[in-house]
C-alpha cells in the first residue's frame, strides 16, 4: 500500500501528513468564516483555499518529478529573479487587507502574489548550492560572509517593505543551513551577538556585563578566529548598542507597541494589546475539550480581523481546546522532525542543506505564528504554513514540499 502511495507522493509519511494539515487548514478557514455578521471575503475563503490546494497538488505532482540537478541548476536564476521581483515590489507593490500599509504584494490583476514567498525558496536553493560546493569546514566569520550576504540581500529588501515576520524567516533559513553545514555553535552565537546586544542595551548595566562576557569569550576563543574578526565583533556590538535608541525611535508606533505589548499586553489594551487579549481569551475559553468545531463564541463575533490568516490558531484553540491544539502542534513537530530525518539520511550535501533551509523557514513560521496567539512572542504578521488562509502562500509551501521530497529521495 505504502508503495502505491509512494509512487505519487514519493515520501508518503511526510506528504500525507501535510495533505492532512492542509485539509485541516481549509476546515479551520471555513470555521473562521462562520461569524455572526457574515463578511463576503471570509465567508468563501475556504472555497478559494480549496481551489489553491488543488492547484498546489498538481504543482506538487509535476515538480516532484524534476531531477535534483535541475533544481540545483535553477537555484541561481531563481534567486536573481526573486531579488529583482523584491526590488520591483518596493516600487509597485501593494498592501492587502489589514496590512494595507505594507508593500509586499505584486498585483497582476487576475492574481496577486508575494515575491518574498518565492525569494525564501530561491534563497534556500542558492545558499545550499554555495555551501555544498565548499570543501573546507566553516570555522571563521570570513567563511560565513558569502551565505550571510546571499540571505541578507532579500532579507533587507523584505525589511524595507516592511515585513518583519518574513524577515525573521530569512534569519531562520540562514542559521539552520549554517548549522547543518557544520558551523560551530559558538560561532553562530557570535554572529548573533550584535542582535542580542541590541536588545540588552535597554539597560546599561546588563549590557556592560554582557560586553565583558563577550570579550572574555572572544579571548578564550582567540585561536579559532582571526584578530580582525574578534575586533569586528566587538565593534559590531558597540555599534548595535549605539544605534539601539535611534533604531527604536525609527520604528513606527505600531511596531513599538507590538514589542511593548509583548512585554506587557496591558500596556496598550486598546490597540496592539487588544489582539493578544482577545486571542488569549479565545484560546482560554477553549479549555481542555474546546467549544466544538465552528462553535467558538469569540470567533463568531469576529474578535480579530485576521482570524482566518494570522490568528487561525486562536480559532483552533477555542474550538478544539487544548487537545486539538496539542495535537496540531504534535503534527507540526512530526513534519519538522521528518524533514530533519530526511536530511540525516541524505548523503548529498545539497539535498540535506535544502531540507534544512526549508525546515528553518517552517520552524520560524510555526513558532512565531503559534507563539504570538498565546502571547509567547510579539505579534508579527506571519502565516501558519498549510493552515492559514492565503492561496499563493499555500501554493509556494507545497512547491517547497515537492522540492524537499525530491531532493531527499534522489540517490
Amino acid at each position, binding site marked *: 500500500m505504502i508503495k502505491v502511495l509512494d509512487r505519487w507522493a514519493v515520501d508518503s509519511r511526510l506528504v500525507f501528513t501535510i495533505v492532512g494539515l492542509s485539509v485541516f487548514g481549509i476546515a479551520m478557514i471555513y470555521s473562521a468564516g462562520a461569524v455572526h455578521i457574515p463578511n463576503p471575503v471570509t465567508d468563501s475563503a475556504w472555497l478559494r483555499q480549496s481551489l489553491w490546494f488543488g492547484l498546489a497538488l498538481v504543482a506538487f505532482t509535476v515538480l516532484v518529478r524534476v531531477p535534483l540537478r535541475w533544481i540545483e541548476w535553477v537555484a541561481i536564476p531563481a534567486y536573481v529573479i526573486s531579488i529583482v521581483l523584491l526590488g520591483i515590489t518596493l516600487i509597485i507593490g501593494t498592501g492587502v487587507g489589514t496590512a494595507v500599509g505594507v508593500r509586499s504584494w505584486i498585483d497582476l490583476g487576475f492574481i496577486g502574489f508575494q515575491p518574498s514567498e518565492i525569494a525564501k525558496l530561491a534563497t534556500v536553493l542558492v545558499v545550499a548550492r554555495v555551501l555544498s560546493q565548499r570543501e573546507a569546514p566553516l570555522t571563521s566569520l570570513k567563511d560565513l560572509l558569502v551565505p550571510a550576504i546571499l540571505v541578507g540581500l532579500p532579507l533587507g529588501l523584505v525589511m524595507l517593505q516592511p515585513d518583519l515576520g518574513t524577515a525573521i524567516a530569512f534569519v531562520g533559513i540562514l542559521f539552520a543551513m549554517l548549522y547543518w553545514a557544520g558551523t560551530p555553535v559558538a560561532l553562530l552565537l557570535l554572529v548573533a551577538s550584535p542582535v542580542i546586544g541590541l536588545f540588552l542595551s535597554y539597560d546599561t548595566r546588563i549590557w556592560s556585563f554582557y560586553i565583558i562576557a563577550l570579550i572574555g569569550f572572544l579571548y578564550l576563543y582567540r585561536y579559532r578566529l582571526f584578530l580582525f574578526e574578534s575586533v569586528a565583533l566587538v565593534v559590531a556590538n558597540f555599534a548595535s548598542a549605539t544605534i539601539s535608541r535611534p533604531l527604536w525611535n525609527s520604528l513606527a508606533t505600531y511596531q513599538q507597541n507590538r514589542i511593548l505589548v509583548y512585554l506587557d499586553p496591558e500596556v496598550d*489594551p486598546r490597540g496592539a494589546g487588544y489582539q493578544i487579549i482577545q486571542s488569549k481569551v479565545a484560546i482560554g*475559553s477553549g479549555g481542555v475539550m474546546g467549544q466544538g468545531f465552528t462553535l467558538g463564541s469569540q470567533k463568531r463575533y469576529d474578535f480579530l480581523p485576521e482570524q482566518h490568516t494570522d490568528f487561525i490558531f486562536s480559532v483552533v484553540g477555542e474550538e478544539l481546546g487544548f487537545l486539538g491544539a496539542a495535537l496540531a502542534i504534535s503534527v507540526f513537530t512530526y513534519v519538522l522532525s521528518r524533514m530533519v530525518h530526511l536530511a540525516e539520511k541524505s548523503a548529498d550535501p545539497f539535498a540535506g542543506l535544502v531540507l534544512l533551509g526549508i525546515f528553518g523557514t517552517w520552524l520560524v513560521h510555526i513558532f512565531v505564528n*503559534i507563539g504570538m496567539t498565546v502571547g509567547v512572542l510579539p505579534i508579527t504578521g506571519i502565516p501558519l504554513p498549510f493552515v492559514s488562509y492565503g492561496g499563493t502562500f499555500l501554493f509556494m509551501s507545497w512547491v517547497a514540499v515537492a522540492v524537499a521530497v525530491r531532493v531527499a529521495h534522489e540517490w
Partner: protein
Amino acid sequence: MNLRMPHERKRRALGVYIAIAVVMAALTVAFFRIQVLGSSTWELRAESNRIRQLPIPTSRGIIYDRNGQILADNVPGYAITLLPGPLDSARATLERMSDYVEISEPQIERVVSTMARFGREVIVDADADFQVISALEERRAEFPGLYIEMRPRRRYLVREAAAHVLGYVGEITGEELSLSAFPEERYEQGMIVGKGGIEKQYEALLQGRRGLKYVEFDARGRIVGDFAGVSTDPGEEGGELRLNIDLELQEWIHQIFPDSMAGAVVALDPDDGGVLALYSAPSFDPNEFVGGIEQEHWNALNTDEKRPLFDRAVLGLYPPASTWKLAAAGIALDLGVVTPDEHMSVPCNGGWFYGDRYWRCHDAGGHGYQTLAEAIGNSCDVYFYQLGLRIGLDDMLRRATNIGFSRQCGVDLPQESRGIFPAEREWWNRNFNYSPSQGEVLNLAIGQGPNSQTPLKVAQFYLALARNGSAPAPTIARGIDLGQSWSLDLEPEHIEALREGLRKVTAPGGTAHFGTALEHWEVIGKTGTGEHALSQAELAEPHAWFAGMAGRPGEAPEIVVAVIVEYGASGSAMAAPIMAKTADFYLRKRYGIPIDSVQTYREHLLRGIPTPWYSARYAPRTEAPQ
C-alpha cells in the same frame, strides 16, 4: 565536506531534534497554562458569552477663575450606547427604542452603518435624560445590546456671563478626527471635545485620557461582569485649568451691560496683562450645547441678527475712533513734530478747510487754541487734523504698523481677528484702486478711515499706556507666558503727556467726567464715537467707545478696561459709565470695600444721593478750616 559522513549528520540532527523539542514544548506549555491551568481567568463564563472592550469616560478638567471659583465642572450624565451585534437585530432594537428615545429613521440608519463599518459600539444618544434611562432600564430585556454608560457631563456655572471666553463642548466630528490636533491614540468617535474659547484652546490639557475595561457579555448583549483576565485601565482625569478671569467681575459686567445692546468689555491687569474679564454681548448659555444642541435653538442662535455666538471682544472689528487719537499723539511726540505744550497754528473754530473740503470738528462751537492734553480732553478733531499732517501719511502708516495695529494681540484663544491698518500707500491701490492723497492722514489721525481694531486690541493699547509703553500679550490662562508683546517705544515723559490728556477727559469739564467720577478711585481714559457706514448715512447711531484705566488716586493704575457699545451713540454717556462701574467693582473687591450699585457721580446725581466725597476732591472749600 563532513556532511558526507553519516555520523556527523547524525550528531547535527540530534541538535536540531533538541531545538524542535524545546520550541514545541514551549508552545505546548503555553497552551497548557492558558487552557488547562488558567482557564478560569481566561475562560468566559458561558459558551455563548464574549468579551468586548468598553471605554471608561473620564472627567474633563475643571476650570477655575483667578480666585479659585469654579467656572466649569462636571455632573453625572448618561450615554445610550448600542453594542455591536447582528445588524438586523441592532436595527430592530433601535426601532423599539424610538418609543422612548428621540431617534429618527436616518439616525437609526447612521448608527447601523457605523456599526457595520467599524464593528464596535456606537453611541445612540450622548446625553440622555434620566427619565429616558430609567424607562429603558425597566425594559432591559427588550433591548439586547443596550449599554448605558455613565459619563461626566460638562456644566457651566456662569451661563451667559462667560460664554464666549469659556467656549463650550460637543461631540467630536469626523472632520476633527482627521486633524492632527486630535491624535488617533486619544480620540475616537463619540468623544466630547472643546468647540470654542478656552475649552478648545486648552483641549489637550482638559481632555484627560479615556480608561478602558474588558467586560463579558451574554448572547443577548447584557453585561455579565468585568472580565477577570485583564485589569481595568481607569484612565486619567483631565487637568485643571486656572484662569486670570475674575468670575464675579465677569458676572457684574453681564449685569450692568445694557440688556438690549450689543458690544464688548475687556478688562486687563496692568501687572501682567492677565485678562480679568472678556465679555461679549449678547451672549448665550453654553450649557445648551452640552450633549448636542437642539436644532431649533441652534437655528435661532445663528439667525439672530445680533449674532449672540459671535465673540465681539476678540473677533469684532470696529473703527477705534477717538480712542485712537492717543496713538496719533504718541507717534507725533516720538517723531518730535509736536511738543506737549505748543498750540497748533490754526485754532479750532468748529472745522477746518483743507484741500477742497471742509473738515468738521465734532463740536461746531470750536475749541480755540489748545495744548495736546487739552486737545485730547476735548477730543478736538481740528487739532488732530493738523497733528496728522505734521506726521505725514507715510510716517503715520509706518509707525502705526510697527506698533502693531495690523497684528493680532496673541491672546490664548483659538480665534482672534487681526487689526486692519494700511502698511503702505499701495494698500489703497490694492483695495480701492486709487492712490491716497495726503488728506487720508486727517481721517487716520482721528481714528477713522481704513482702521479697524478689536476691543481686545484697543484694551492692549491702553494697557501699554497704563504701563511703561509696552504691553504683554493678554493671557487668559493663569501662569502661562505667551511671550508675545508689543511696544509703543515712547519716552516716559511722552507717556506722561498722553496720560495727562486722558486725565483731562475725566476731569471736571472733560467729555466723560460725570460718568466716570468715582468715590474711591481715579479713572482716566478716552471716549470714542465710531462712525460707520450706517451712521454716516444717518441710518443708525455710531458705536460708543471708552477705553481707560483706574486705580487709587495719584497711584499706578490697577485695571485697564475697554468698552464698546454697538450703536451706543455716545462714548461719554453710554460706554464710559460701564467702564467706570467695571473698574469700581474690581477695585472695591480688591480693597475690601462693600459693593454699591450706585457708583458714578452721575448715578449719585440722578438719584439725588449726596456726594461729600465729590466736593472734597473736585471742589475743595477755599476758606481755611476753623
